[in-house]
């Protein structure tokens, strides 16, 4: 039997869709979409597609196997921020391959996210402990972008009045390339230095610790000299090395950044991995990205939440100093659990192993008369082999070990957790040829770390890092945390603008195959043919469905895709001698990240008004275009709009911008409402980013990973990341293909849906949103709609009249939904006081109806509050969510029953009710009393 994957992916079958269409008064999905999407932007019915026809799940897996077999798995000793590591099987199975972890959303609703928030606070504690600094965030996108963010932080925090940033000559080459591309756009000058001589005045400096060459030195003096001039000292530090060497905090550094990849996260040909950033006391408000903190719930128990959210770009918009919205939560959870599982002694033993294996090789080389370039090192060693470097690298590769070719006379190797004696002997044979020893023996090894430089301070001393060392204990800890959280394996997550659709098991299958998981990003091309074929196919398919010519998969988040696209526009204008084109028009309804990205691309934001229907005000747009015609760089517009509406005038808008010489950036956040029916490139888009983690099924991972490819017309192609096959062109991520190990997910989705399946998914998503809007309209006003009163793939429910009438707030409704077994829709975006619902195509009719009925029941509860049946401060809404303890402990004094509190609908009694682990969390308390590390165990007593 051959079944269509689309029938599994789409939640509503033909009969359900017929019921929904009847409620809306349309004869077919096509008729509904025809009425909703303006005809002027529709693709022609006979448009040629390069997408192959849909494969079955079995066929897609077979094709992925064939691609995987074209990758060659070796033992990479290239280093440069990517090291071999063993993912503990208990973490692989219970986190990476567990939908309870990977299908969760960013923890905006902290009451139903306590599990991953605890895992993230473990992560932050791990990073602050190892770096010796005060506060760490919940992860960065990768090491290279973390260094860029540290540079931007330094510029904001420094009192030095200069545009100069100092860069260690021994910094990772990719970091240097990223810094150059990013610094230029914001007017920062980079000066390379070895910190030996006089330092120029600078607002900050980055030092690689240990250096990219493996050189281990004590930078305390360099740090002090940077700070003397008012600069901020940033160490890009190897987290595993910090288990053995003096921490950045003890050296006096202000900021430490790096990657946590080697804490059990597979290489994945470059990503995704969790970067990290930690800062000294006093800089915590300057931290970019997500920060988890401790607060208290309504019962006074400790509870976790995202802290200091006002630092973030969605609030600060064009005043933001970072456009980072997301973290790499799933990978940060893995890294933190690696530390939980191994504990301080285990981590130290792993660091010792890496160091010892390097020492064994160095001792044998020294015996043969070949001293390493740097006497002091942790795990990375350079060796001079005059004229023979390529030969040495080839010899090692022939034995499946990859070395780094530094130059014609120098090779380099890095040891790690996985390095064996056999690997060490391969290195020796490659370098020494016949003079290599036959075995390493057991003689004592030299010390490559100056005893003065050895770490003396403790780390990972919180009990969580010493409690779960048996596999049984670890499995149960992971289950205990997962059970606290609400993910897609519990029920729908109807978050508007987030597209929480199915992440199918078949799509996920290949992620952990060794041929995708264990490749180093700098592996020779001959080893990665399967990967590059997959990247090429996926790029072509994405270009095809969006109407663009070129796609770069490098950006590892939507925000980075925006930045890459805007930098491409900048590069285009500059190449044409139009440096003065720097104005970026952004509608007032846009997501805050748009404005933040524009500023980081060196642009000046001019806001365009929206009309009362939420659409771009065409008259204001024309006026702004006229006013800035000479210096217009771009318009950023989201389609369908952030209000979930297909704007009718989109072609007039893009035409007006083009007529003035500007470029049009179409934000692809809402592509799930368009795929198969219209293409950005056909209605005036020059460049877009897509969110593979929304439209193309990469799971949200509880707040990352994301993938934000940038797609562009041919005239912008030379300015995209990796343009023309040059890995170093216009970089925005550490790895050339960004986060390649999760690309098989989107590949499998497109391969199994085919053009027709993608189109059906869009229709089903639009149908679901309109069905919800139609059924809830009489209970909550639906704020915006387009042609024929229809919404796109999401709808905004206006709760302001309800608040006016009853005093019940959006927060109350969102938290009450938890008692009904739901994750709340998006709160107060894009309009304060509203809920934005996006059901996606993956939910079935029963789940849609369950949400609708819950919303109607909650409305009735709110009306009862308004009518005075319940007091305003003591009712099921104000007290939501209700924990089990809150309804069984002590005397029940509330004016509603316990049953009403926790079983507001009878189906919950036998329907697998979700019990929140905490009551409502006090947001202000957590921000006023900032604690971002594991609280002591007694706090939970």
């Amino acid at each position: 039997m051959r079944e269509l994957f689309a029938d599994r992916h789409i939640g509503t079958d033909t009969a359900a869709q017929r019921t929904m269409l009847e409620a809306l008064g349309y004869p077919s999905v096509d008729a509904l979409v025809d009425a909703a999407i303006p005809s002027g932007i529709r693709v022609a019915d006979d448009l040629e597609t390069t997408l192959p026809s849909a494969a079955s799940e079995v066929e897609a897996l077979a094709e992925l196997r064939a691609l995987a077999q074209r990758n060659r798995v070796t033992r990479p000793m290239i280093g440069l921020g990517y090291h071999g590591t063993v993912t503990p099987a208990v973490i692989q199975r219970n986190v990476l391959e567990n939908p309870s972890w990977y299908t969760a959303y960013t923890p905006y609703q902290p009451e139903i996210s306590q599990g991953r928030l605890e895992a993230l606070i473990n992560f932050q504690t791990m990073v602050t402990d190892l770096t010796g600094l005060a506060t760490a965030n919940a992860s960065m996108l990768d090491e290279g972008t973390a260094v860029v963010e540290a540079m931007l932080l330094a510029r904001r925090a420094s009192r030095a009045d200069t545009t100069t940033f100092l860069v260690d000559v021994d910094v990772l080459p990719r970091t240097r390339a990223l810094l150059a591309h990013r610094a230029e756009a914001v007017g920062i000058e980079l000066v390379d230095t070895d910190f030996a001589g006089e330092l120029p005045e600078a607002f900050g400096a980055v030092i690689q610790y240990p250096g990219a060459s493996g050189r281990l030195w004590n930078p305390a003096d360099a740090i002090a000299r940077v700070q003397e001039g008012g600069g901020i000292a940033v160490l890009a530090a190897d987290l595993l090395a910090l288990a053995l060497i003096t921490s950045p905090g003890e050296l006096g550094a202000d900021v430490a950044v790096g990657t946590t990849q080697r804490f059990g996260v597979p290489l994945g040909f470059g990503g995704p991995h969790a970067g990290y950033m930690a800062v000294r006391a006093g800089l915590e408000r300057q931290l970019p990205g997500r920060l988890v903190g401790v607060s208290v719930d309504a019962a006074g128990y400790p509870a976790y939440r995202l802290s200091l959210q006002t630092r973030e770009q969605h609030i600060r918009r064009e005043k933001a100093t970072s456009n980072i919205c997301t973290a790499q939560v799933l990978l940060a959870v893995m890294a933190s659990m690696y530390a939980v599982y191994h504990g301080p002694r285990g981590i130290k033993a792993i660091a010792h192993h890496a160091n010892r294996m390097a020492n064994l090789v160095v001792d044998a080389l020294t015996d043969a008369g070949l001293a390493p370039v740097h006497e002091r090192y942790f795990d990375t060693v350079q060796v001079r082999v005059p004229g023979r470097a390529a030969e040495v690298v080839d010899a090692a590769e022939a034995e499946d070990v990859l070395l780094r070719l530094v130059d014609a006379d120098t090779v380099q190797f890095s040891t790690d957790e996985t390095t064996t004696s056999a690997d060490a002997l391969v290195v020796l044979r490659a370098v020494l040829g016949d003079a290599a020893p036959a075995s390493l023996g057991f003689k004592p090894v030299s010390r490559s770390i100056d005893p003065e430089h050895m770490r003396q301070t403790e780390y990972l001393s919180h009990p969580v890092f010493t409690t779960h060392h048996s596999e049984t204990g670890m499995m149960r800890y992971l289950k205990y945390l997962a059970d606290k959280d609400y993910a897609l394996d519990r029920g729908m997550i109807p978050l508007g603008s987030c597209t929480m659709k199915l992440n199918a098991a078949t799509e996920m299958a290949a992620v952990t195959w060794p041929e995708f998981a264990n490749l180093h990003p700098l592996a020779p091309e001959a080893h990665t043919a399967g990967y590059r074929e997959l990247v090429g196919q996926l790029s072509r398919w994405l270009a095809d469905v969006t109407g663009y010519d070129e796609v770069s998969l490098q950006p590892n988040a939507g925000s980075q895709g925006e930045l890459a696209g805007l930098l491409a526009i900048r590069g285009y204008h500059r190449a044409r001698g139009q440096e003065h084109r720097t104005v970026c028009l952004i509608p007032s309804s846009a997501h805050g990240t748009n404005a933040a990205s524009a500023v980081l691309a060196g642009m000046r934001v001019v806001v365009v008004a929206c009309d009362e229907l939420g659409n771009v005000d065409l008259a204001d747009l024309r006026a702004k275009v006229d006013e800035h015609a000479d210096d217009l760089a771009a318009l950023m517009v989201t389609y369908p709009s952030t209000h979930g509406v297909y704007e009718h005038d989109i072609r007039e808008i893009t035409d007006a911008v083009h007529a003035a010489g500007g470029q049009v950036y179409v934000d692809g956040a809402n592509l799930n409402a368009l795929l198969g029916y219209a293409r950005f490139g056909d209605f005036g888009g020059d460049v877009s980013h897509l969110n593979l983690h929304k439209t193309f099924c990469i799971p949200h991972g509880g707040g990352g990973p994301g993938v934000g490819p940038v797609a562009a017309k041919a005239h912008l192609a030379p300015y995209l990341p990796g343009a023309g096959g040059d890995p170093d062109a216009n970089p925005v991520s550490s790895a050339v293909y960004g986060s390649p190990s999760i690309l098989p997910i989107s590949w499998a989705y497109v391969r199994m849906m085919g053009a027709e399946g993608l189109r059906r998914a869009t229709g089903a998503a639009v149908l679901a949103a309109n069905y919800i809007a139609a059924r809830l309209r009489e209970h909550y006003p639906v704020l915006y709609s387009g042609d024929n009163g229809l919404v796109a793939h999401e709808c905004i429910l206006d709760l302001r009249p309800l608040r006016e009438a009853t005093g019940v707030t959006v927060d109350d409704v969102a938290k009450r939904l938890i008692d009904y077994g739901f994750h709340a829709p998006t709160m107060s975006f894009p309009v304060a006081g509203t809920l934005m619902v996006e059901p996606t195509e993956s939910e079935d009719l029963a789940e849609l109806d369950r949400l609708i009925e819950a919303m109607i029941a909650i409305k009735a509860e709110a009306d009862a509050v308004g009518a005075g049946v319940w007091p305003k401060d003591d009712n099921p809404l104000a007290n939501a969510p209700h924990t089990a303890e809150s309804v069984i402990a002590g005397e029940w004094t509330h004016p509603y029953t316990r049953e009403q509190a926790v079983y507001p609908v009878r189906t919950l009694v036998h329907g697998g009710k979700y019990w929140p682990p905490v009551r409502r969390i006090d947001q202000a308390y957590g921000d006023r009393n900032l604690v971002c590390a594991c609280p002591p165990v007694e706090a939970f007593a």
Partner: protein
Amino acid sequence: MTLPADLKYTSEHEWVAVDGDIARIGITDYAADKLGDVVFVDLPQAGTPAVAGRVVGEIESTKSVGELYAPVDGEIVEVNEALADDPSLVNSDPYGAGWMIAVRFTGLPELLSADEYAALTAE
């Protein structure tokens, strides 16, 4: 919503208490209510110049960020250090313990009366 009649106001939702050549400045009850729970107030150093209309500080709540504008030209002579420890004073006592900066002003621009400000916020 309280609105002391003896204070002057600005369209940026700040109040100004003039005493000799010193203007004490904070944000209004209305502004504090709109911001919600204030969790952090970023104030300038005493001794820095104030230029009317320029941003001199930031007021963060759990949900948004407001800016503190200097309503007068002059020199900031004192800032409310108590807000560092207890930013909630801005919500609980906006016209008293929740004050933000004191400026020795060189010129006093036209400011709003309580009635004029009330009319502004009624719109």
